[in-house]
Protein backbone atom coordinates (compact mmCIF):
# COMPACT_ATOMS: atom_id res chain seq x y z
CA UNK A 1 0.00 0.00 0.00
CA UNK A 2 2.86 2.38 0.82
CA UNK A 3 4.27 1.92 -2.68
CA UNK A 4 0.82 2.47 -4.19
CA UNK A 5 0.50 5.77 -2.33
CA UNK A 6 4.02 6.80 -3.41
CA UNK A 7 2.98 6.31 -7.05
CA UNK A 8 -0.13 8.45 -6.48
CA UNK A 9 1.99 11.16 -4.86
CA UNK A 10 4.39 11.10 -7.84
CA UNK A 11 1.50 11.45 -10.28
CA UNK A 12 0.17 14.41 -8.32
CA UNK A 13 3.62 16.04 -8.15
CA UNK A 14 3.98 15.62 -11.92
CA UNK A 15 0.57 17.21 -12.53
CA UNK A 16 -0.93 14.08 -14.06
CA UNK A 17 -3.47 14.30 -11.22
CA UNK A 18 -4.79 17.63 -9.97
CA UNK A 19 -5.36 16.37 -6.42
CA UNK A 20 -6.29 12.98 -5.03
CA UNK A 21 -7.78 11.53 -1.85
CA UNK A 22 -8.75 8.08 -0.61
CA UNK A 23 -12.51 7.54 -0.42
CA UNK A 24 -14.89 4.58 -0.45
CA UNK A 25 -14.46 1.74 2.01
CA UNK A 26 -10.76 2.45 2.57
CA UNK A 27 -11.52 6.09 3.24
CA UNK A 28 -14.16 5.06 5.77
CA UNK A 29 -11.75 2.53 7.29
CA UNK A 30 -9.57 5.47 8.30
CA UNK A 31 -12.33 6.46 10.77
CA UNK A 32 -14.13 3.21 11.61
CA UNK A 33 -13.38 -0.49 12.07
CA UNK A 34 -11.64 -2.21 9.11
CA UNK A 35 -14.12 -2.84 6.26
CA UNK A 36 -13.84 -5.63 3.71
CA UNK A 37 -13.10 -4.28 0.26
CA UNK A 38 -11.00 -5.44 -2.67
CA UNK A 39 -10.37 -2.06 -4.27
CA UNK A 40 -8.87 1.26 -3.35
CA UNK A 41 -11.18 4.10 -4.46
CA UNK A 42 -9.22 7.20 -5.33
CA UNK A 43 -11.15 10.39 -5.97
CA UNK A 44 -9.31 12.77 -8.28
CA UNK A 45 -9.50 16.31 -9.51
CA UNK A 46 -8.22 16.09 -13.06
CA UNK A 47 -6.29 18.79 -14.87
CA UNK A 48 -8.28 20.12 -17.83
CA UNK A 49 -7.15 18.93 -21.23
CA UNK A 50 -6.54 21.31 -24.17
CA UNK A 51 -10.09 20.60 -25.35
CA UNK A 52 -11.48 21.64 -21.95
CA UNK A 53 -12.77 18.12 -21.28
CA UNK A 54 -11.96 16.08 -18.21
CA UNK A 55 -10.52 12.69 -19.08
CA UNK A 56 -8.91 9.85 -17.15
CA UNK A 57 -6.99 8.82 -20.28
CA UNK A 58 -3.79 10.86 -19.57
CA UNK A 59 -3.69 9.30 -16.09
CA UNK A 60 -4.13 5.78 -17.47
CA UNK A 61 -1.50 6.46 -20.15
CA UNK A 62 0.99 7.58 -17.47
CA UNK A 63 0.27 4.45 -15.44
CA UNK A 64 0.56 2.14 -18.46
CA UNK A 65 3.94 3.73 -19.24
CA UNK A 66 5.04 2.76 -15.73
CA UNK A 67 4.03 -0.84 -16.47
CA UNK A 68 0.78 -1.01 -14.48
CA UNK A 69 -1.97 -3.19 -15.90
CA UNK A 70 -5.69 -2.46 -16.24
CA UNK A 71 -8.36 -5.00 -15.42
CA UNK A 72 -12.00 -4.06 -15.90
CA UNK A 73 -12.55 -0.78 -14.04
CA UNK A 74 -9.31 -1.09 -12.03
CA UNK A 75 -5.63 -0.60 -12.57
CA UNK A 76 -3.24 -2.63 -10.48
CA UNK A 77 -0.67 -0.37 -8.83
CA UNK A 78 1.97 -2.11 -6.71
CA UNK A 79 -0.30 -5.02 -5.81
CA UNK A 80 -3.44 -2.98 -5.13
CA UNK A 81 -6.39 -2.70 -7.55
CA UNK A 82 -7.09 1.03 -7.74
CA UNK A 83 -10.24 2.60 -9.11
CA UNK A 84 -10.00 6.27 -10.04
CA UNK A 85 -13.19 8.29 -9.70
CA UNK A 86 -13.15 11.83 -11.08
CA UNK A 87 -14.91 14.47 -8.99
CA UNK A 88 -18.10 14.76 -11.02
CA UNK A 89 -20.16 17.09 -8.85
CA UNK A 90 -19.89 19.95 -6.35
CA UNK A 91 -19.93 17.68 -3.29
CA UNK A 92 -17.01 15.59 -4.55
CA UNK A 93 -15.05 18.69 -5.57
CA UNK A 94 -15.54 20.17 -2.10
CA UNK A 95 -14.66 16.83 -0.47
CA UNK A 96 -11.39 16.71 -2.39
CA UNK A 97 -10.53 20.33 -1.65
CA UNK A 98 -11.06 19.75 2.07
CA UNK A 99 -9.50 16.26 2.30
CA UNK A 100 -6.86 15.95 5.00
CA UNK A 101 -3.22 14.91 4.79
CA UNK A 102 -2.45 11.82 6.89
CA UNK A 103 0.72 9.81 7.43
CA UNK A 104 0.93 6.22 6.21
CA UNK A 105 4.18 4.69 7.42
CA UNK A 106 6.80 7.05 5.92
CA UNK A 107 4.48 8.40 3.23
CA UNK A 108 1.95 11.21 3.39
CA UNK A 109 -1.38 10.55 1.76
CA UNK A 110 -4.78 12.20 1.78
CA UNK A 111 -8.18 10.95 2.99
CA UNK A 112 -11.63 12.47 2.53
CA UNK A 113 -13.05 13.86 5.78
CA UNK A 114 -15.50 11.59 7.61
CA UNK A 115 -18.27 14.18 7.19
CA UNK A 116 -17.79 14.20 3.41
CA UNK A 117 -17.71 10.38 3.28
CA UNK A 118 -21.00 10.45 5.16
CA UNK A 119 -22.53 12.94 2.71
CA UNK A 120 -21.24 11.04 -0.34
CA UNK A 121 -22.86 7.83 0.99
CA UNK A 122 -26.14 9.68 1.43
CA UNK A 123 -25.90 11.06 -2.09
CA UNK A 124 -24.96 7.69 -3.64
CA UNK A 125 -27.70 5.91 -1.70
CA UNK A 126 -26.93 2.20 -2.19
CA UNK A 127 -27.60 -0.31 0.59
CA UNK A 128 -23.90 -0.55 1.39
CA UNK A 129 -23.80 3.26 1.67
CA UNK A 130 -26.55 3.01 4.26
CA UNK A 131 -24.43 0.54 6.25
CA UNK A 132 -21.44 2.83 5.96
CA UNK A 133 -23.42 5.84 7.18
CA UNK A 134 -24.46 3.82 10.23
CA UNK A 135 -20.83 2.89 10.95
CA UNK A 136 -19.62 6.47 10.50
CA UNK A 137 -22.38 7.71 12.81
CA UNK A 138 -21.46 5.09 15.44
CA UNK A 139 -17.68 5.10 15.28
CA UNK A 140 -16.25 8.16 13.51
CA UNK A 141 -15.40 11.37 15.38
CA UNK A 142 -17.87 13.46 13.38
CA UNK A 143 -18.06 17.24 13.68
CA UNK A 144 -21.85 17.45 13.71
CA UNK A 145 -22.06 21.19 12.95
CA UNK A 146 -19.77 20.74 9.96
CA UNK A 147 -21.73 17.68 8.79
CA UNK A 148 -25.01 19.57 9.10
CA UNK A 149 -23.61 22.42 7.00
CA UNK A 150 -22.47 20.01 4.27
CA UNK A 151 -25.83 18.21 4.18
CA UNK A 152 -27.68 21.53 3.97
CA UNK A 153 -25.40 22.95 1.27
CA UNK A 154 -25.72 19.86 -0.93
CA UNK A 155 -29.45 19.32 -0.33
CA UNK A 156 -29.03 16.04 1.54
CA UNK A 157 -30.94 16.80 4.74
CA UNK A 158 -34.14 15.26 3.39
CA UNK A 159 -32.32 12.08 2.40
CA UNK A 160 -30.76 11.88 5.88
CA UNK A 161 -34.19 12.30 7.46
CA UNK A 162 -35.55 9.49 5.27
CA UNK A 163 -32.76 7.18 6.40
CA UNK A 164 -33.31 7.91 10.07
CA UNK A 165 -37.06 7.19 10.06
Amino acid sequence: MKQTLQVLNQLEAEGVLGRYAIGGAMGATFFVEPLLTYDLDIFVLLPETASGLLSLEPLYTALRQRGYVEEAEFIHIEGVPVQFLPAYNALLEEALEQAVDVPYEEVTTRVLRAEHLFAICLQTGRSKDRDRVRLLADEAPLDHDYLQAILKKHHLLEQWQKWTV
Partner: protein
Amino acid sequence: MAKMDRMIQIPEQIARLFEAKEARRHQLAALPYPEKVKAVVRLQEMAAPVFRRRGRVVHVWKIAK
Protein backbone atom coordinates in the same frame (compact mmCIF):
# COMPACT_ATOMS: atom_id res chain seq x y z
CA MET B 1 -50.58 -5.66 20.58
CA ALA B 2 -48.37 -2.74 21.51
CA LYS B 3 -44.82 -2.86 20.18
CA MET B 4 -43.34 -2.75 23.69
CA ASP B 5 -45.31 -5.88 24.64
CA ARG B 6 -43.61 -7.84 21.89
CA MET B 7 -40.08 -6.82 22.90
CA ILE B 8 -38.01 -9.62 24.34
CA GLN B 9 -35.98 -8.98 27.46
CA ILE B 10 -32.32 -9.63 26.61
CA PRO B 11 -30.65 -11.77 29.27
CA GLU B 12 -27.94 -9.93 31.19
CA GLN B 13 -25.19 -12.23 29.92
CA ILE B 14 -26.17 -11.61 26.30
CA ALA B 15 -26.38 -7.86 26.93
CA ARG B 16 -22.81 -7.98 28.29
CA LEU B 17 -21.72 -9.90 25.19
CA PHE B 18 -23.22 -7.19 22.94
CA GLU B 19 -21.47 -4.50 24.98
CA ALA B 20 -18.14 -6.34 24.63
CA LYS B 21 -18.64 -6.62 20.85
CA GLU B 22 -19.39 -2.90 20.67
CA ALA B 23 -16.27 -2.10 22.68
CA ARG B 24 -14.18 -4.34 20.38
CA ARG B 25 -15.49 -2.47 17.32
CA HIS B 26 -14.49 0.84 18.87
CA GLN B 27 -11.04 -0.58 19.70
CA LEU B 28 -10.66 -1.64 16.07
CA ALA B 29 -11.77 1.81 14.91
CA ALA B 30 -9.02 3.36 17.03
CA LEU B 31 -6.20 1.29 15.48
CA PRO B 32 -3.53 3.13 13.44
CA TYR B 33 -4.41 3.16 9.73
CA PRO B 34 -1.55 0.85 8.61
CA GLU B 35 -2.78 -1.74 11.15
CA LYS B 36 -6.30 -1.41 9.76
CA VAL B 37 -4.97 -1.96 6.23
CA LYS B 38 -3.32 -5.20 7.42
CA ALA B 39 -6.67 -6.23 8.95
CA VAL B 40 -8.44 -5.48 5.65
CA VAL B 41 -5.97 -7.76 3.83
CA ARG B 42 -6.65 -10.52 6.38
CA LEU B 43 -10.39 -10.07 5.76
CA GLN B 44 -9.73 -10.27 2.00
CA GLU B 45 -7.80 -13.54 2.48
CA MET B 46 -10.65 -15.03 4.52
CA ALA B 47 -13.45 -13.90 2.21
CA ALA B 48 -11.75 -14.53 -1.17
CA PRO B 49 -12.56 -18.29 -1.39
CA VAL B 50 -16.25 -17.53 -0.79
CA PHE B 51 -16.36 -14.82 -3.47
CA ARG B 52 -14.45 -17.02 -5.93
CA ARG B 53 -16.85 -19.93 -5.42
CA ARG B 54 -19.62 -17.47 -6.36
CA GLY B 55 -17.70 -16.64 -9.56
CA ARG B 56 -16.54 -13.19 -8.56
CA VAL B 57 -13.00 -12.21 -9.49
CA VAL B 58 -11.24 -10.75 -6.46
CA HIS B 59 -7.60 -9.94 -5.80
CA VAL B 60 -6.10 -10.06 -2.33
CA TRP B 61 -3.77 -7.08 -2.07
CA LYS B 62 -0.10 -7.90 -2.38
CA ILE B 63 1.32 -5.45 0.09
CA ALA B 64 4.46 -5.70 2.21
CA LYS B 65 3.52 -7.23 5.58
